[in-house]
């Protein structure tokens, strides 16, 4: 606008005075104000300089600290699978509600705090169905983080979400819903004592969960993450350690089908004989893999608080007991291996009574001369003692040690006991050697027994038990994998095979383990009925026994070693009566499961199988006959022969659905089925001659 500078000093009061001489003061004052503004600008710029250039690094560091608050990440606990990939233990996220009281009360003037807190407390309490006073106290405590309610339902989560989003009245800030991990065992009691449980702090406290806690748990990491002002994680900066997010998964050798059968049979027998406890082990003798490890009484790890230590104890590895006669297997093996006896040799069994020093040893089946096979089949204490004494205490001890007794098997479970071969800590005296040869005065665990038996079954190699087939990361990469691990060769293959043959006799006629025999298979095994020491008297009790059975099937190329121990059975106590049936049922199941057909059995033709009279039918007919019921009167076209395209309906009464259907289709009539169970009525009635392709009503009722 400089063009106006040259304008004549217009004396026009109506023009812009400011541009004139008279406006000089106004211009000056404007200048002064501009100066003030300039001063302000200078102030701002200098403040900016101080803040951003001089102190900048400090503030940047502070800001970084604030947003990159390191957060502890609790990785998701690994899953435990059985050998077929079924989950035995998983971690699920259960929502829990927590509160940031500072956030809730932020910006609330001090005098209003009680009012606001009470109002919020009432609304939160209503949403969570908890005590308002409790919530109010938590709000007024002004903690940055506190639990409001743990493990809430989906409805409660929704109610809280509404409060936090302001969809239900005024918005309440500071409410946080987060997933809290909870260990869940989908198969409940299955393998409970083996798996163990996880305490709320996320640490495994028993069983596998405890033994492999470090791997399952992962590495709780300090994770660098970006958080916004309400503390939500915006994104993380990546984690180098894959275990920071999730622990490793365990893939067990356990088979939940076999495990289930073992537990069921064990529970049955334990209840039937009013036993105080028991355990069943199923081991694959070829690679040492544990297929089942049952312990009774068990518990449900989901509900571990309701269980007693008694229930949680994994008896298969924790309990060391006097094995009794099952030990004779290894005495005989030791004798054969050392050459002190020959397979064909017969021993004199002293007619059931023999004195060793000041102790008299007795046999339940007194005999004179017995072969090794008979010694095992009739479980002669005297002859076993003779073999042990022939070996000598040290040699027998060494031999039993080689079978793994007296040392831990190294299974990855807590609390394994090693058993004791020399309870007094010194070499055996003669009586002790004699007792040890038939399993008295020493203690072993079920797992030791199983592994030692497996060594006989697989041709002489003592294997390390394998419980964990592999450990993988959450994404499936294999971290470690177990392999067949031979601890040592115990006996030669020849001795092992000879023993296996001898043990077959135990389950044959005349043996103590006849109950363990399985149709169509040759079963090798040994019973034991061990007296327990009464802790009060220190002598053998007359009431308390440990009944056990160890064995493997088939005797040649065995697929499973099964060890059954029943502690303190009441009604009967003989190993052959109590434990052998459990062995049979479990072994049968394993054989079926493994798809092994019984030796020497012809395959059955399916059609023939279908033609066989249905037992239900027969029963029904028998019952009817017993009640004196006459067959219903048949009136419709009963006489005469069926024509070319006609058939005579048979009597389907009492047939199951499937058989009746199959038969009627074969006849060429069209069945119309209603109901379930056994056939109650048919239309037209039996004996009627109908056209092929005509409808026949078949009415079924559940068998009563």
């Amino acid at each position: 606008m400089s063009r106006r500078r040259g304008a004549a000093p217009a004396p026009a009061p109506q023009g812009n005075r400011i541009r004139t001489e008279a406006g000089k003061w106004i211009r000056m004052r404007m200048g002064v104000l501009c100066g003030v503004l300039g001063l302000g600008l200078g102030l701002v710029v200098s403040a900016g300089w101080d803040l951003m250039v001089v102190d900048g690094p400090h503030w940047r560091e502070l800001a970084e600290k604030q947003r990159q608050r390191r957060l502890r990440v609790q990785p998701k606990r690994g899953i435990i699978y059985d050998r077929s990939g079924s989950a035995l233990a998983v971690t699920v996220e259960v929502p829990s509600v927590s509160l940031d009281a500072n956030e809730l009360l932020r910006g609330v003037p001090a005098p209003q705090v009680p009012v606001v807190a009470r109002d919020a407390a009432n609304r939160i309490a209503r949403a969570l169905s908890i005590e308002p006073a409790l919530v109010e106290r938590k709000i007024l405590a002004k903690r940055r983080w506190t639990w409001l309610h743990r493990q809430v339902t989906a409805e409660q989560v929704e109610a809280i979400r509404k409060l936090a989003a302001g969809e239900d009245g005024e918005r309440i800030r500071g409410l946080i819903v987060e997933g809290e991990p909870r260990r869940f065992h989908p198969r409940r009691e299955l393998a409970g004592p083996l798996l163990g449980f996880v305490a709320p702090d996320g640490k495994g406290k028993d069983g596998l969960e405890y033994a492999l806690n470090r791997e399952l748990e992962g590495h709780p990491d300090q994770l660098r993450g970006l958080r916004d002002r309400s503390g939500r994680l915006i994104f993380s900066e990546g984690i180098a350690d894959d275990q920071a997010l999730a622990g490793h998964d365990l893939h067990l050798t356990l088979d939940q089908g076999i495990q289930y059968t073992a537990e069921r049979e064990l529970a049955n027998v334990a209840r039937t004989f009013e036993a105080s406890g028991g355990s069943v082990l199923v081991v694959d003798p070829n690679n040492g893999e544990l297929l089942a490890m049952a312990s009774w009484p068990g518990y449900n790890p989901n509900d571990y608080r309701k269980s007693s230590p008694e229930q949680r104890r994994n008896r298969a590895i924790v309990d060391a007991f006097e094995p009794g006669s099952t030990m004779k297997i290894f005495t005989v093996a030791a004798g054969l291996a050392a050459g002190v006896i020959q397979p064909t040799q017969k021993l004199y069994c002293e007619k059931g009574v023999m004195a060793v020093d000041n102790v008299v040893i007795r046999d339940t089946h007194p005999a004179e001369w017995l072969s090794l096979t008979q010694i095992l089949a009739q479980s002669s204490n005297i002859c076993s003692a003779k073999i042990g004494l022939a070996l000598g205490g040290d040699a027998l001890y060494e031999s039993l040690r080689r079978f793994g007794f007296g040392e831990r098997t190294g299974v990855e479970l807590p609390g394994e006991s090693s058993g004791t071969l020399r309870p007094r800590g010194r070499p055996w005296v003669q009586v002790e050697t004699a007792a040890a040869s038939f399993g008295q005065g020493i203690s072993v665990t079920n797992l030791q027994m199983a592994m030692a038996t497996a060594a006989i079954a697989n041709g002489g190699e003592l294997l390390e038990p394998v419980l964990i087939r592999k450990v993988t990361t959450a994404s499936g990469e294999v971290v470690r994998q177990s392999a067949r691990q031979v601890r040592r060769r115990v006996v030669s293959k020849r001795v092992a095979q000879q023993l296996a043959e001898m043990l077959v006799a135990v389950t044959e006629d005349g043996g103590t383990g006849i109950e363990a025999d399985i149709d169509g298979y040759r079963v090798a095994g040994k019973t034991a009925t061990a007296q327990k020491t009464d802790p009060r008297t220190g002598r053998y009790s007359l009431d308390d026994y440990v009944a056990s059975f160890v064995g493997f099937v088939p005797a040649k190329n065995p697929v499973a070693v099964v060890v059954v121990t029943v502690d303190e059975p009441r009604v009967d106590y003989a190993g052959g009566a109590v434990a052998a049936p459990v062995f049979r049922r479990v072994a049968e199941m394993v054989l079926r499961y493994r798809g092994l057909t019984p030796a020497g059995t012809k395959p059955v033709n399916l059609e023939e199988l279908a033609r066989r009279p249905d037992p239900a039918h027969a029963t029904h007919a028998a019952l009817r006959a017993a009640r004196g019921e006459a067959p219903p009167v048949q009136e419709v076209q009963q006489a005469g022969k069926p024509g070319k395209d006609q058939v005579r309906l048979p009597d389907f009464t009492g047939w199951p659905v499937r058989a009746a259907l199959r038969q009627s289709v074969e006849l060429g009539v069209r069945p119309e089925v209603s109901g379930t169970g056994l056939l109650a009525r048919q239309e037209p009635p039996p004996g009627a001659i109908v056209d092929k392709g005509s409808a026949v009503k078949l009415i079924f009722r559940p068998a009563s």
Partner: protein
Amino acid sequence: MKMLRSLFAPGARVGAMDVVLAAVVVALIGFGLVMVYSASVVEATADFGNPHYFLQRHGVFALLALAVMFVASRFDYHKLRPLTYPVLGLVTLLMVLSVAGFGHTGGGAARWLRIGPIHVQPSEAAKVALVLWLGYSLDRKRERVKTFSIGMLPHLLMAGVLVLLCMKQPDFGGAAVLLFLTFAMLFVAGARLGYLLGALMLGALFATWAIRFTPYRWERMLAWSNMAEHRQDLAYQPFQSVMSFGSGEITGLGLGKGLQVLYLPESHTDFISAIIGEELGFIGILGLCAVYLVIVARGVRVALSAEDEYGSYVAFGLSVLFGVQALVNMSVAMAVLPTKGLTLPFVSYGGSSLLVSAAAMGILLNISRPRLGPAPLAAPYTAAPEASATVLTESTFGDGADPAEGARA
């Protein structure tokens, strides 16, 4: 003379507006759009599920603002004179309404008034209305400005009413700007320094009292003076804001890379300068200051060269308004000043602020247009004889007859 006469034709009486000023402001609005997007994307995503929520709204407002600015720059500012009182009355009424409980609470203050779907912030408009009224009044009173009863008291009373209404909302920052504007314009118009200083002292006393005996203000004041201790509660916002500035250091983290938006409340409205500082650094802040310096300087230039005193006063008042608003906003964001509740003109998110600022800028741009010929005689406000005399004098001297200037128009 022929050319001169052609300029008498309707629509050709005025010259071009201040192109530099217009260009700078348009650029600033565009810059504001970018910064609003950068500062609001997190909140928009978190609260509205749409990262562009604020950007879209601000974009619409920016277009509207450009239109308003354009129209206002075409609207002869002289015609504003009869509108002075209606505008002032309306704004006062809106302020009263928002204080009286019709207000929509935002950030703890009843600063918003809801009219249908639109939220209006009357205190933004109050500043412009006050400037228009002061310009009008001071121009009319001329020499009598020096008197107390005519020159001082009415202006102080009117401003006082608006200031009180502002404080009641409570909008302490707005009140301070209104007071500053009043004193600035009275000072420029030639009010006696004694009166001004007296009033200033009274005002300072009042402000002290208002702060000291309003618990929340006093607490905020204490918190501000000891920020580090109150960083989690009362001084949370200024502390975070300072942290934003600081972490920008010299060159900034880069556009869109600022992370303080996660922490700084109102980062896209009142505290957008903090995000600018964080993302563009000290250099960006210097640039921003330079832009406001240009705006104020060009505005003052317009004031100095305005056709009449009314224009001068209004132009100066508006320039000071922009300048003070920007300065106070940045000072607050840097925690140099303790108050809050001021937008950064043309940059901050917010329709009211942007539209009012645009309208004010339009008026300023209209004042910047050189008057090349006599104003229309029939103009209602120039019915007074002295007005036409002015026109005549102007045309007699024929300043606008410069051929080059005419051609440019």
